[in-house]
């Protein structure tokens, strides 16, 4: 609720210091860095032209979009199943479930990425087990490729998919499900016609959240991709830190920011994002 008149001005004054701080130390530097994309190596839109002319740039963008799309879909599927199980669980079991979902969030993303490397590499647990069982004769290429990146990213993203969907499912009145069965719907029909449509806002919110997070992912793809499969964030770091091509790197960074804002803008028309990201409403 916004106040009106004098009271409204008072509220704005209250957030003014925070706003000034944010502007001076966060937004201004970002804008300054992003501005390099139109000044380096020479003023103009030369860097942006590369999106249409450079095969390497296009490949990075397409790879990123593909990995993010697959990660989002898989994280949503897994997350939906988990959120559904939590919703139907008894209150006591629910607490343990939520804890199990949250614990990975408290473990460093670096640790988790290396854990996956240990599991998935040529002499890793998975390959060794499969070889010993005689199911494969050659180790499978499970890591340092797109597959490895997706495994790591899905693992990281599942909690972020579960939480908005769980919030949305918890809002569904259980009496509606009972009513649907009483009216003759089988368990599957109840899910398809009542539960799924009512949990849709949560699915969309989780999808937006996971997709946006995935776009800028750095550590997991850098470690599990082994430098062979490049996503946007790693590519930016490569341009700026190794190749000292600031213009190209900041151009891609600008594109990343734009992509995120566009995604948010599109979905804010479909669903009420403020409600999804926790502002009461």
């Amino acid at each position: 609720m916004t106040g009106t008149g004098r009271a409204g001005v008072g509220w704005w004054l209250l957030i003014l210091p925070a706003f000034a701080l944010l502007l001076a130390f966060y937004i201004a530097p970002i804008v300054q860095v992003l501005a390099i994309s139109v000044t380096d190596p020479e003023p103009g839109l030369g860097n942006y032209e590369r999106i249409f002319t450079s095969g390497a740039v296009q490949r990075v963008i397409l790879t990123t979009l593909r990995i993010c799309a697959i990660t989002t879909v898989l994280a949503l599927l897994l997350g939906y199943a988990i959120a559904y199980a939590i919703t139907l669980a008894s209150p006591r079991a629910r607490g343990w479930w939520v804890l199990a979902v949250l614990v990975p969030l408290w473990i460093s993303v670096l640790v988790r990425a290396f854990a996956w490397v240990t599991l998935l590499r040529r002499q890793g647990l998975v390959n060794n087990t499969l070889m010993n069982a005689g199911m494969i004769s050659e180790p499978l290429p499970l890591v340092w490729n797109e597959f490895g990146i997706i495994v790591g990213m899905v693992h990281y993203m599942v909690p972020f998919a579960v939480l908005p969907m769980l919030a949305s499912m918890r809002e569904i009145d259980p009496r509606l499900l009972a009513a649907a069965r009483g009216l003759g719907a089988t368990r599957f029909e109840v899910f398809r016609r009542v539960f799924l449509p009512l949990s849709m806002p949560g699915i969309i919110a989780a999808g937006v959240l996971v997709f946006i997070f995935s776009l800028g992912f750095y550590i997991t793809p850098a470690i599990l991709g082994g430098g062979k499969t490049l996503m946007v964030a790693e590519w930016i770091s490569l341009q700026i830190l190794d190749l000292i091509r600031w213009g190209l790197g900041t151009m891609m960074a600008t594109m990343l920011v734009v992509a995120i804002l566009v995604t948010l803008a599109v979905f804010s028309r479909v669903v009420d994002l403020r409600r999804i990201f926790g502002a009461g409403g």
Partner: protein
Amino acid sequence: MSDARGHALSLREVSKHYGSFAAVERVSLEVGQGEFLTLLGPSGSGKTTILMAVAGFVTPTAGSILLDGADITPLPPEKRNFGMVFQGYALFPHMTVVENVAFPLRVRGLSRADRDAKVRAALDLVQLGQFADRLPKQLSGGQQQRVALARALVFDPNLLLLDEPLSALDKKLRAELQEELKALHRRVGRTFINVTHDQEEALSMSDRIAILNHGKLIQHGAPGALYERPRTRFVADFLGKSNFLDGTVRDSRPGGFALENGASRLAVALPDGEAPPADGTRSLLSLRPEKIDLLPEGQSADNVLEGRVVSWAYLGTGFSLRIATEALGEIRANLPAWRSAFAPTEGLPVRLGWDARAAVPVAEDAP
């Protein structure tokens, strides 16, 4: 909905235990074809558990439920073909009125044309045709209630189950919908089972009432019979208000007895065929406040009692009086207001009188 034959339901020794807690304890009950039965009781009396067992959401620990003589106890809710109006209505918020009402037909795989015709008929039945494309949240409470009714009736259910259907509405609307629901029951001719804790609602709508307390069926019968001849203190107290007078039975004979309490002797007449209690036993009488009259000077009645007005309330239709008597303690009496120029004041001496048939012997509740 042209088929007007209702179905008969019987509960045989149905129990539902949660651990050591008995929510329902050996309840047997017959519901006749086309009957409007109300399960009445305070919260925790097991009435909703019974309804949920009939609907199939709760599996009885023991006993069986039969529809027209066939055992339906193991059937899941979706196989029972019972219409149900839930507390709070449970309308699907993402569907319009039409989609809500069409839901039971859709899951039964009816063709679009059949669906449309039935949905229209059901909405007409509850006079909601013009709201077809609204969402539930755009409707008032009473309208939502009607949508829930249409949805529960559209698929020609064997029974209609109502779980506190009017509890969410304000008093005036509730009275209106009570009449509507009763009229609807007559129109569709189906068997209705209603759950409520509201005794007025139970009295005004039902063909028969089953009163429950602590999971047990206490008494059942037509509303008038229950109100006039309650069998236990709980029934007399829950269904309407009552004074309770206790004493020792004297002068027991077919058709009546006298109740001795200290110096007073109350004359009690029993209806034909009711055996009087034995002399010397304790007995408890239920005496409805509205059956007590204020006696003018010189007039007498079967029972006469002197007292003083302790407090009074004017209710529009009448006065509610609390009267202190020396012989029997405090007595409540309700008097119609319009017939007498009675002006109560605190401390006013009054003579109370009532007919020997007015008081009903009731059993103390089992602990």
